[in-house]
């Protein structure tokens, strides 16, 4: 029986295409997620986030008047954001490298390229559940750690331009 584990999850779908919203809702339903809110763009989504707790956000990239990037930046950085740590999966047909990098730099947790399959969506959700990522706060960025493959046993020299000292949150 599907459902156990997700029955209390509150999800938010931010997508301007009603058919895609309906499909995403149906896929979340198949996991047992029942409490799902929908918004047609980032601006409406922000209002919904203030009114109602959300544990998971699925957002499109291209929307008007507020797109998924601006929405993500708001959630991560705005002082009035109700939950800057909420997992955000960006779902988009815009799969050009520069757009994916823009999504990463805005602070999305996962990026899912359209066309959507249940398998791919569930894999992204599993990634969030199984391997939650550390968050990073530094000049110009707040969001999930953008380095996916960190080797804790690395003993070689630091060569990246942006290698820096880290401190743990208190």
């Amino acid at each position, binding site marked *: 029986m*599907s459902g156990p584990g997700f029955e209390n999850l509150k999800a938010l779908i931010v997508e301007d295409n009603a058919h895609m919203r309906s499909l995403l809702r149906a896929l979340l339903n198949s*996991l047992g997620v029942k409490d799902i809110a929908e918004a047609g763009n980032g601006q409406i989504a922000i209002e919904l986030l203030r009114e109602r707790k959300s544990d998971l956000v699925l957002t499109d990239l291209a929307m008007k008047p507020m797109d998924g990037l601006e929405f993500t930046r708001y959630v991560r950085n705005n002082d009035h954001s109700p*939950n800057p740590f909420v997992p955000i999966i960006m779902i988009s047909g815009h799969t050009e490298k520069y757009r994916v990098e823009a999504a990463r730099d805005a602070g999305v947790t996962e990026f899912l390229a359209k066309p959507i399959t249940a398998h791919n969506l569930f894999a992204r959700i599993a990634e969030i559940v199984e391997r939650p990522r550390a*968050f990073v*706060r530094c000049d110009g960025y707040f969001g999930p750690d953008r380095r996916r493959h960190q080797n804790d046993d690395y003993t070689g020299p630091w060569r990246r331009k942006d290698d820096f000292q880290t401190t743990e*949150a208190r």
Partner: protein
Amino acid sequence: MTKNSKPKVQLIPPGAYPQMLSKPRAARALRTLQAPETAAKAQVAMEAAMPAMRAAILQYVEEMERSADDMTRLFEAAHEIRGFAETAGMITTGRIAEVLCRYMDDITRFGRPMDTTIVALHVSAIARAARAEDDNVRTGQAVAAELAALVAKRLAEQS
């Protein structure tokens, strides 16, 4: 740059901020995500959504055909088609729309003039594929491949 002058970063480990699911729920959720029954339910949901999605794609095709003089609207319609044609099982339609979007996106970024013949060829091919009973026929795939080659060549010339 000295070690001390490097910018500091605050690393917040997963245990220090609220998680999407509590640990006991997360373990159950993972089992749900991997369960064959979940995949079967999702498949049923996908199939139920397909007729409406196919109808919507045909509307976007009409929108695209009406927008020959408005490249912004044409791109938006092509983008929607690219977004869910393949999810609706219209593989060739989705692939040609993908090539058209890539062409329009790149040519705009390069600041070059749009070749309206290339756009019209794609619009026509997308419309034919979307209206074909079985859009994934070999002819359609061949057309998609030829158009992709044409766009790659033209973009290489322009970049």
